[in-house]
């Protein structure tokens, strides 16, 4: 995502190495994703769900109907 959009920066963080940061974002299980220090995504989601959650894009009609 970071490579595709110049607005996006991505960081893979070792939760055990950086415990202070993990505590700050209440990382109690992995993977856990934090977007702009406010949006929390727990677990590994399918790509479309992850992207919509990360970018705060509402589900489209097709997705909403399923």
């Amino acid at each position, binding site marked *: *995502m970071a490579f595709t959009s110049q607005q*996006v920066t991505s960081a893979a*963080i*070792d939760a055990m190495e*950086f415990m202070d940061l993990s505590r700050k974002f209440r*990382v109690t299980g992995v993977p856990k*994703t934090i*977007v*702009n220090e406010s949006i929390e995504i727990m677990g590994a989601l399918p790509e479309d769900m992850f992207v919509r959650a990360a970018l705060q894009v509402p589900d489209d009609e097709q997705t909403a109907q399923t």
Partner: protein
Amino acid sequence: MSLLSAQDEQVLKQHLSVIDKPVTVLLFTQTIGGSESGPVAKQVLDEVARLNDKISVVEKNFILDTEDRGKYGVTMAPALVFLSDGQDTRMRMYGAPTGYEFVGLVEALLIAGTGKVDLEDDTVALLAGVDTPTTIQVFSTPT
């Protein structure tokens, strides 16, 4: 002692052979007072870089290289910053890229080295609409 076996090296070398542009990994480490994962990160990167002459590793001092820290927004060490043909890819890794994180390292090298990403069309379309700085932090563990 090598972290990669001869067999691992052979498989990885084949994977990395598609790289067709220079990849630079900036490795920020803290020599004094830093964690033990800094030297581990360096060893992993050095072993991987040996397998492909388009991959290079440049070590940066987390404390002293403040200009580069600021330029790439590096806030912790060890940190890996991936450059594709000298350009920032905005991909970072914090911690030693071992265990499951090694897969992430290889993926980042392939993206930076080929310019190709394996994203769905819908994802690319959504990303085209992002008009504000967005930071995505993914916490994981090596094991």
